C-alpha cells in the first residue's frame, strides 16, 4: 500500500523586542545565568505582568505578512503545567482569542500552507540537567515569542523545509526576529501522521518537539514517516505521543504520552486585561510593511531583468537586497550591479553569516559610480572587475584606481599597431594558432589588452589579430 505523510508545523519565533513581554528586563541572548531577571520573570508571588506594546505590534506585522485576519479583540490565558522552566507553574499564552488567525504561506508550487493562528506568549527558562540536579537559568523566561500554527497541509519533508525557509525569510524582512535556529530564536514542533494514499481521514499523530535545524527537521520527518508506515504495515498502531529526535542516530524516541489540550486547564489570565486592536491601527501597520520577498523577486526578474537565479540570491539576504536597491538608483542596467555583487563581492564573503551581514567596504554609491563608468563605455568590464576588487580591499572610490588616461578611448589605428606588435612578438602563439590551436589566440589578445590596460575591446582585438595572421 502507498502511504502519504500528513504534517502540520508549530513554529516558535522569538521576537526581537528590546525588553521582555511582561517586564523591562533585556531580551539579549546569553549573559551570565539569572542576570536578566526580576521578580516578574522569575514568577514571584504578588508580581503583576504588564504587556509590552511592541509584542502586539510585531505579532500584527507577522499576521499581515502571512495573510492572516487580525482579531480586534484578543486576550491572554494561563496554560498550566508543572515544570521548573517556568516557576509560576503556568505559561502566559493565548488560547481562544489569538492576535491573528486564518492566514497562509504560498509555496513555489503555488500550494498554500494554511496558517490556523499566530499567538503571543512568554518563553521559558533554560534547564541544564546535571547528576541528580536540574540547574535553571531564567534569562530567557519572559522573552516574547509568537507561535505560528499551520493546518495539517504539509505532505513532504521538502514542503516543510520550504515553508520554514519562507517563514524565516519573511520574518527577517519585516524585522521582528533574526530567526536563528542554532541560537534557538526559531524552533519547530512537527505534528506528523501517515495515511493510505487517497484516504481522507487522518491517522494518529505524533509530535516531534524543538527541532532547531531545517536539515534535521527534514530528516526527522522522513524517519518518523517510515517508522509509522512500518508500524501500520506490521499491523501495529501508532501511539499518540511526543517524541524526541536524536541527530546522532537519526531516529526519534518516545518522550512522553501527549496530554490532551484540556489538561493544561487554560483559563483567562486575570492579571492582564483585554487587548483591543483598532482597524486604523492595523491599517497603519499594513502601510508600513515592506515589500514581501516573493514580490521583490518577481520585480527583480520582470522589471529589472535580473536572471532568476541571481535575483533569488539577492532576495535571500535582506541586507544585500537593501544594498542592491541603493546601488541601482540611476543605473540603467541593474544587472551590472547584481553581477558586481554576486561576482566580485561574494568572493570575499566566506560563509552564510558574512553574507547575511554583508559588511563590505564599498558603499552603494561607490559601486554605482563604477557601474556608470562601465555603462557609459568609459571603461571595459575587465577593468571594472579588477577595479572593484581593489575597491573591496581598500574601501577607496573607483577614481583612486582609474586615471583619466584609462578612460580615454583608443583609436583604431593605435589598436592595429598594437595588434601587429603582438603578432611579431609572439611567433610561437601565431604558429600554434595556425596549426589549429584555437586557444593560442588568447595569448595575443592578452598582450594587446595588457598594453592598453584593458581599455581595448577584446572582441575587436581578436578579430583584428585574425585578419593580420591570415
Amino acid at each position, binding site marked *: 500500500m502507498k502511504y502519504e505523510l500528513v504534517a502540520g508545523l508549530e513554529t516558535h519565533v522569538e521576537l526581537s*523586542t*528590546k*525588553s521582555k513581554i511582561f517586564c*523591562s*528586563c*533585556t531580551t539579549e541572548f546569553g549573559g*551570565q*545565568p*539569572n*542576570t*536578566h*531577571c*526580576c*521578580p516578574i520573570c*522569575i514568577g514571584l508571588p504578588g508580581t503583576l505582568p*504588564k*504587556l*509590552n*506594546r*511592541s*509584542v*502586539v505590534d510585531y505579532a500584527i506585522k507577522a499576521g499581515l505578512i502571512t495573510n492572516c485576519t487580525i482579531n480586534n479583540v484578543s*486576550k491572554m490565558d494561563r496554560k498550566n503545567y508543572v*515544570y*521548573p522552566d517556568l*516557576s509560576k507553574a503556568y505559561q502566559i499564552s493565548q488560547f481562544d482569542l489569538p492576535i491573528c488567525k486564518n492566514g497562509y504561506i504560498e509555496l513555489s508550487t503555488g500550494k498554500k500552507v494554511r496558517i490556523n493562528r499566530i499567538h503571543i506568549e512568554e518563553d521559558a527558562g533554560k534547564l*541544564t*540537567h546535571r547528576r*541528580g*540536579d*536540574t*540547574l*535553571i*537559568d*531564567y534569562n530567557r523566561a519572559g522573552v516574547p515569542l509568537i507561535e505560528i500554527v499551520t493546518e495539517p497541509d504539509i505532505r513532504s519533508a521538502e514542503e516543510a523545509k520550504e515553508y520554514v525557509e519562507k517563514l524565516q525569510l519573511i520574518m527577517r524582512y519585516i524585522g521582528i526576529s533574526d530567526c536563528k535556529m542554532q541560537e534557538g530564536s526559531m524552533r519547530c514542533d512537527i505534528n506528523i501522521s501517515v495515511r493510505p494514499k487517497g484516504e481522507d481521514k487522518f491517522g494518529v499523530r505524533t509530535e516531534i518537539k524543538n527541532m532547531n535545524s531545517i536539515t534535521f527537521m527534514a530528516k526527522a520527518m522522513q524517519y518518523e514517516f517510515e517508522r509509522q508506515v512500518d508500524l501500520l504495515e506490521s499491523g501495529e498502531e501508532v501511539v499518540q505521543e511526543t517524541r524526541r529526535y536524536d541527530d546522532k542516530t537519526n531516529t526519534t524516541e518516545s518522550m*512522553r504520552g501527549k*496530554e490532551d489540550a484540556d*489538561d493544561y486547564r487554560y483559563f*483567562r489570565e*486575570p492579571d492582564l*486585561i*483585554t*487587548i*483591543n486592536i483598532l482597524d486604523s491601527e492595523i491599517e497603519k501597520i499594513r502601510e508600513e510593511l515592506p515589500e514581501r520577498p516573493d514580490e521583490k523577486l518577481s520585480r527583480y526578474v520582470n522589471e529589472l531583468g535580473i536572471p532568476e537565479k541571481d535575483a533569488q540570491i539577492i532576495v535571500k539576504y535582506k541586507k544585500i537586497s537593501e544594498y542592491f536597491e541603493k546601488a541601482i538608483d540611476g543605473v540603467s542596467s541593474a544587472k551590472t550591479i547584481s553581477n558586481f555583487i554576486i561576482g566580485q563581492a561574494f568572493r570575499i564573503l566566506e560563509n552564510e553569516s558574512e553574507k547575511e551581514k554583508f559588511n563590505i567596504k564599498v558603499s552603494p554609491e561607490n559601486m554605482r559610480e563604477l557601474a556608470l563608468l562601465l555603462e557609459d563605455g568609459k571603461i571595459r568590464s575587465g577593468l571594472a572587475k579588477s577595479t572593484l576588487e581593489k575597491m573591496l580591499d581598500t574601501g577607496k572610490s573607483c577614481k583612486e584606481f582609474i586615471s583619466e588616461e584609462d578612460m580615454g578611448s583608443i583609436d583604431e589605428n593605435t589598436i592595429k599597431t598594437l595588434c601587429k606588435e603582438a603578432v611579431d612578438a609572439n611567433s610561437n602563439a601565431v604558429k600554434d594558432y595556425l596549426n589549429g590551436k584555437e586557444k593560442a589566440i588568447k595569448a595575443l589578445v592578452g598582450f594587446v589588452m595588457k598594453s592598453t590596460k584593458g581599455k581595448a575591446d577584446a572582441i575587436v582585438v581578436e578579430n583584428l589579430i585574425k585578419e593580420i595572421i591570415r
Partner: protein
Amino acid sequence: MVVTVEDVKKLAKLSKISMNEEELNQLTEDMQKIISFAHEINDACDGEFEFTDINNIINVFRDDIVEESFDRKEILSGVNGGEDGFFAVKKLI
C-alpha cells in the same frame, strides 16, 4: 454539569495521586458539590458583565524600554542550594 467517577480518575492521574474506590466515590460527590456551587454563582451574573474589564479599562501596555534587571544576589536570595548562579532543583523528569 455532572461529575463522573471517570472525571475524578482523570484528575487523580494528572495530579499523580493514587486513590482507592471509596476515596474516588467520596471525591466524586464532593467535586459535584463544588461544581454546582460554581454554577450557582455563574447563574447570579446576567451574562453581559465581564469581570475582567471593570471600569472599561483596555489596552494597558508598557513601552518597549529596557530597565536594569535585579542583582543576581537578590534574585537568588530566597533559594536553597543555588549553584554557580543557577537555581537548582531535584531532577524532575
